[in-house]
């Protein structure tokens, strides 16, 4: 199976080049074929992945660049994120089938290039190769937002590009320092390097600058609503579905295992920002009139569950964070598709223009409800599994964080159900909204496919957790030495004397 990773990178790239030389309909079919082949290769990859086997599998190594190498390899975490990407890509192409009319060959080429770069990020085993893939994704996304976006697309594309660029640049300097210190560019070797605690602080901050913007974390999230609102539907799907996961992947792959002491040092920074994000952006989402903006803010809130889970320093938190990443990738992608479906019909994202869609679009209403519930975290959907695990993890790290984060679930239910109510229930407010036809076969297939996976993840999450279990274990072993002690302990065990001492002091205080 050696070479399958390179093949997966090559297929979309070749298809992208081919797209540039054909007509619009030719480009659509080439893009669909390219992404489907990659999805098929992804399934082969998953089927051949040896769960519980070597940490890094399908390894490829070719030192063709002298200073860094074409080094690829995946662990379970990367495998799952690659699957997410290759699964969403054909759906994106299908979603753009008729809604994109101008400059189709370039559009398809940009998406295929995007696919190569995204899965390249997850596959890279060389730190500079990682950086190149990570940063290169800016170019196609810049073009996608800027050429095919909405009215204010130019502002949004600049903001997206410059925000993420500034974040990443400092990370490059940190990488240079690390490679200089460790004498290797290989990520597995760097993972085994213990950096001095003093340096870790700076390195952690440099990586944080990049991943926090990408994630995005409050307060550097402001590019996201703009980018989402202006991007075409498929662009939003990829942005929410995969690009935001690059930040989480970066935290899991670099920040936490490479700088455990610094991660502990900045525990409250991450938790503080995440708590603000959960509460604040949820409240902001509650008052939005623009559907895409609402979902964009909900993404910021959901991503905060990921950061909380990752930096909780325990298995539940980390596994929860990874599942949230996967389920949010699917659910938010599906929600943007849902918005796209009605946007294509009415050409507005104003929530007030819709209403009562359950009457004339029953199939749409059912699927939209499913994804709304998955976003809220209803048991039986992937959202529940991830958020629940993440909350358990955060509670073990700090009960305060656990308590604040849980309010996010309630607020999430509020804004999502409020959105659903305004769009689907009641009577239609506009005759043109009432006349919209239900899903066509194309839309039904793409939304149906995501719905099936969301339910699968909710009912039997073991399929998704199993490949990652080993890697989470290795990561936990690595960071154990720096884990914060946490404040949630069983009353029966070690805390008894302390608790009784506190009790006595309190009694004494009352006595005086």
């Amino acid at each position, binding site marked *: 199976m050696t070479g399958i990773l390179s093949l997966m990178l090559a297929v979309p790239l070749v298809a992208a080049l081919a797209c540039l030389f054909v007509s619009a309909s030719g480009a659509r079919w080439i893009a669909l074929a390219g992404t489907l082949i990659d999805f098929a290769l992804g399934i082969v990859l998953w089927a051949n992945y040896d769960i519980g086997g070597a940490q890094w599998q399908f390894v490829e190594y070719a030192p*063709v*660049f*002298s*200073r860094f190498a074409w080094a690829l390899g995946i662990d379970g975490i990367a495998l799952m994120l690659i699957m997410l990407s290759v699964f969403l890509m054909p759906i994106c192409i299908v979603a753009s089938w008729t809604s994109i009319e101008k*400059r189709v060959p*370039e559009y398809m080429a940009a998406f295929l290039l995007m696919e190569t*770069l995204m899965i390249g990020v997850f596959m890279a085993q060389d730190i*500079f190769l990682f*950086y*190149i*893939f990570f*940063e*290169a994704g*800016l*170019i196609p996304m*810049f*073009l996608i937002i*800027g*050429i095919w976006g909405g009215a204010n*697309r*130019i502002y949004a*594309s*600049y903001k997206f*590009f*410059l925000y993420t*660029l*500034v974040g990443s*640049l*400092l990370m*490059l*300097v940190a990488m*240079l*320092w690390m490679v*200089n210190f460790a004498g290797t560019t290989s990520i597995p070797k760097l993972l085994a390097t213990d950096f001095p605690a003093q340096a870790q602080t700076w390195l952690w901050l440099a990586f944080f600058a990049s991943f926090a913007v990408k994630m995005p974390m409050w307060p550097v999230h402001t590019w996201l609503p703009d980018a989402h609102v202006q991007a075409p539907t498929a662009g939003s799907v990829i942005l929410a579905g995969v690009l935001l996961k690059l930040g989480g992947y970066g935290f899991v792959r670099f920040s936490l295992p490479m700088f455990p002491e610094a991660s502990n040092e900045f525990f409250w920074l991450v938790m503080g920002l995440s708590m603000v994000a959960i509460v604040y952006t949820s409240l902001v989402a509650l008052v939005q009139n623009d559907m895409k903006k609402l979902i964009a803010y909900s993404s910021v809130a959901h991503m905060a569950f990921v950061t909380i889970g990752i930096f909780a320093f325990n298995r539940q938190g980390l596994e929860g964070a990874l599942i949230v990443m996967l389920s949010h990738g699917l659910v938010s992608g599906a929600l943007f598709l849902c918005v796209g479906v009605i946007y294509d019909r009415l050409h507005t994202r104003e929530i007030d223009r819709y209403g009562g869609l359950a009457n004339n679009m029953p199939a749409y209403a059912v699927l939209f409800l499913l994804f709304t519930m998955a976003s809220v975290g209803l048991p039986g959907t992937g959202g529940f599994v991830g958020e629940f695990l993440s909350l358990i993890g955060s509670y073990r790290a700090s009960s305060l964080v656990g308590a604040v984060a849980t309010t996010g679930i309630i607020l999430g239910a509020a804004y999502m159900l409020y959105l659903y109510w305004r769009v689907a229930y009641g009577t239609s407010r506009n005759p043109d909204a009432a006349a919209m036809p239900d899903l066509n076969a194309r839309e039904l297939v793409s939304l149906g496919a995501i719905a099936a996976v969301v339910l699968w993840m909710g009912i039997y999450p073991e399929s998704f957790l199993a490949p990652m279990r080993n890697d989470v274990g290795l990561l936990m072993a690595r960071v154990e030495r720096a884990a914060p002690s946490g404040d949630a302990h069983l009353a029966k065990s070690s805390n008894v004397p302390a608790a009784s001492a506190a009790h006595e002091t309190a009694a004494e205080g009352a006595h005086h």
Partner: protein
Amino acid sequence: MGESLALTLPEIILTVGAIVLMLAAAFAGDRHARTITWAAIGVLALAAAWVPGIATAGGVAFDGLFVADSFAAFAKVLVYIAAAAALVAANGWFGRAGDYRAEYPVLILLSSIGMGMMVSAGDLLTLYVGLELQSLAAYVLASFQRTDNRSAEAGLKYFVLGALASGILLYGVSLLYGFTGSTLFGDVSVALQNDGVSTGELFGIVFVLAGIAFKVSAVPFHMWTPDVYEGAPTPVTAFFASAPKVAAMALLTRVAIEGMGPATFEWRQIVIFMALASTILGGVAAIGQPNIKRLLAYSSINNVGFALIGLAAANREGVSAILFYMAVYVAMTVGSFLIVLRMRDEAGEPVETIASLSGLSRTNKPLAAAMAIFMFSLAGIPPLFGFWPKFLVFDAAVRADLTWLAAVGIVTSAISAFYYLKIVKTMYFDEPAPAYGPTADVPQTILIAAAALFVSPLGYLAIPLIQPLADNAASALF
């Protein structure tokens, strides 16, 4: 003596070639300007062919005045390539207006001789002679379209400011000679080593650096650049932005490392200031420019700033990074200017506004794609190859324990990314402006395509070829 002459064979070939072509130009007249241009390209190729052999033999000619080492060889080949590209550019550009004359290739050849001497200089006087030979030819080239007021103004400005810079440089040379007792780089270095850096020597160093900084157009000696670049005929601008920059940068590196090595601590502060000032000013000042040539002028200032970060590192990696930087920079700059040469309206008149690029991606897809590659590459966004030399420069800074400089420098690169993006935005997002007139210059098209391929991600495959050469060249200075 014979050995010394053998080491200067490329310069001799160029000199003889220039003289023969000058005679040919005088007798055959301007009608044969094109043939003479191709002949000049042939002369450059012939000279370049001798360079590597001489570098392997290595050696010092004329008792140390002239050094033919691998460092000089790398820079020379690069300079010759850039000069040849400028000739190809001119061949397609001038003709239309009927103002192309056979002196142009001869002047480029003379300038190339000067540049070859600059990069091979082992003595402050060789340095000065080479610099002047290069500059005098350049002053004439800047005002080559003598009927055009802007061109004449550019030539005059360049000459006055260039003369001032030469004066400053000579003053520095005389101070260094006075306080160290020699003009040979080696002896100056020994003198600095032996008794530390005296105040007089420090002044000498500062003046020499200031004089050369003018030639590389590093801030604060950059003022002439936008005006001259805008006024000079576009092929000449392409030349100014590429070959002389390479030569001056290599010269600066050699003087700083070989001649003033023991005073690294002193000159490093100056270089760091110039580097950061150049990257910041080159980034900020370009934002409001409506003229593409002025914008590219600021872009060259910006790029020089990054190359200077490699010099500030003052280690082997830094020198190697500078050379690599200049190699990629030449491809990006020449490529961009070749596209500017294509910007003509229906009547064939050159247009220079950025606004005229609007919607180029719809009127001329390949040209827009090539320009986008150059712009993203100049901005240093991976996976384009322009990222790699920046990477090397910052890596050198980190290795020299100047991590803070790398961090500040890299953040300033985000400023310049803004205006490169603006050009991409103009070409891809805006509604089309009137299309450019048709052009059918095949050699230029080939050059644009070759440069675009080199700075595309395929360029990374060239790293194993260029890196050993650059490393080897850098070792010659240490």
